[in-house]
């Protein structure tokens, strides 16, 4: 076998070959997210959140499908009562030191963890809202406006609360538990006050407090992930 010419850098050639052989082809969704977010890194980070992985999505679909079936059978808005709790758990597990094993490393990256938080929370919320809407449509639980204000508004508040607790406590488990527990307390309080389990999603008086609580919790989450002040003085 003849040896290669002297001016051929074999290790450089091998790196070129290895780069082609080992390279990962991003999926259609990741390419679209990369274009939308104008950042391939953010798109990759977005799709690595457990709450957008298949097992999570299947679990959410199963719970909401069961809720839709129960709504059809009982005439009670079970989907509306389930959706906020499901979404809160998903949001809590979408981001943070409690769920990201490479958190320390992520904190030293040019794509900031706060951008990752915002992109993931928004995407997870949107996916869960779509699943909830689909479940509501299947169970014919009411007009679009009723569906939107019936559970989308409380879902926003509960998600923001779960996110705030997860970021402050640096624990996804704490965030999920707090979100589900808060929603349970709201539903049970409505039952005690009005004698109706569905008061938490049916009483329009609650919409403004939900929105205020959601905004407050979102502010807490943003504060907890704020960019540290200048250090050079």
């Amino acid at each position, binding site marked *: 076998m003849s040896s290669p010419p002297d001016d051929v850098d074999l*290790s450089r050639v*091998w*790196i*070129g070959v*290895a*780069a*082609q052989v*080992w*390279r*990962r082809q991003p999926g259609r969704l990741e390419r679209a997210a990369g274009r939308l977010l104008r*950042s*391939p*890194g953010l798109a*990759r*980070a977005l799709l*690595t959140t457990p709450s957008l992985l298949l097992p999570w999505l299947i679990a959410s679909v199963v719970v909401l499908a069961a809720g839709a079936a129960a709504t059809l059978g009982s005439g009670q808005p079970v989907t509306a009562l389930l959706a906020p709790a499901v979404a809160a758990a998903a949001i809590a597990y979408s981001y943070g030191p409690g769920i*990201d*094993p*490479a*958190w*320390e*490393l*992520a*904190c*030293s*990256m*040019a*794509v*900031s963890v706060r951008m990752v938080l915002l992109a993931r929370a928004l995407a997870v919320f949107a996916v869960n809202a779509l699943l909830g809407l689909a479940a509501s449509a299947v169970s014919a639980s009411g007009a679009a406006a009723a569906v939107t204000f019936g559970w989308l508004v409380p879902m926003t508040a509960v998600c923001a609360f779960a996110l705030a607790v997860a970021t402050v406590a640096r624990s996804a488990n704490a965030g999920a538990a707090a979100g589900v527990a808060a929603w349970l307390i709201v539903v049970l309080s409505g039952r005690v006050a009005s004698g109706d389990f569905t008061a938490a999603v049916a009483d329009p008086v609650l919409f403004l407090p939900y929105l205020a609580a959601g905004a407050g919790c979102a502010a807490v989450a943003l504060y907890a992930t704020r*960019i*540290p*002040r*200048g*250090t*050079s*003085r």
Partner: protein
Amino acid sequence: MNVEIADLTRRFGRSQAVDGVNLQAGPGVFGLLGPNGAGKTTLLRMMATVIPPTAGRLRLLGRDPGAHGPRREVRRRLGYLPQNLGYYPGFTVTEFVEYFALLKEMPAARVPAAVAAAIEQVDLGDRARAKLRTLSGGMLRRVGVAQAIVNEPELLLLDEPTAGLDPEQRVRFRALLRELGQQATVVVSTHLVEDVGTACSQVALMDQGKIVFHGTPAELTARGTEQGTGDAPLERGYTAVLAAARSHAVARS
């Protein structure tokens, strides 16, 4: 100077992890020695922009990492291997290194070749497509080094990089350090004095949050000629400087 630190302090509650550190470092390999709890990891985490200082002045690559824009620029040019490398067990070696290359905002077109080069530099070419959960501790450490060097950083921060490496790998890694140090500032925190002796051009010794020695490995060795305990000359210098620093601290208090 790629690293300029003046009176840098970091507190966690009542505990003072780093206490008024002054340090400057240009290109080359800089060793950070010290016992457990000396503040090495906290100092490295501040230099990696993971945590902000409580007080003091920190400039990296000529920029102030306290401001958003300069910090982002510093992070693009930074490589960091934390003491405890968290990883995604389902990722392959290539996917893991590529993920962090993208998060460092490397141009996407340059990423595949940079990933391949980094993996080859740490001798993991034969495991490039293996899942991380199948790798040994030493191999995972090398994956961590690969993600740290994938962007050809101007400032490379390595916390215990040789932990878990076998002697042969350790020797090769020191050669890699010397190679990287020709262009970049490489700061290596380690317990292993032989790493410092063979790979570093400068060394600082930390104890109780302070830098108690700063010089060359030869100067540290010279401190141990008359006193100090240990099997190797550098070890004797290390223990002699530590003993002197502690007796000073006791005398002051």
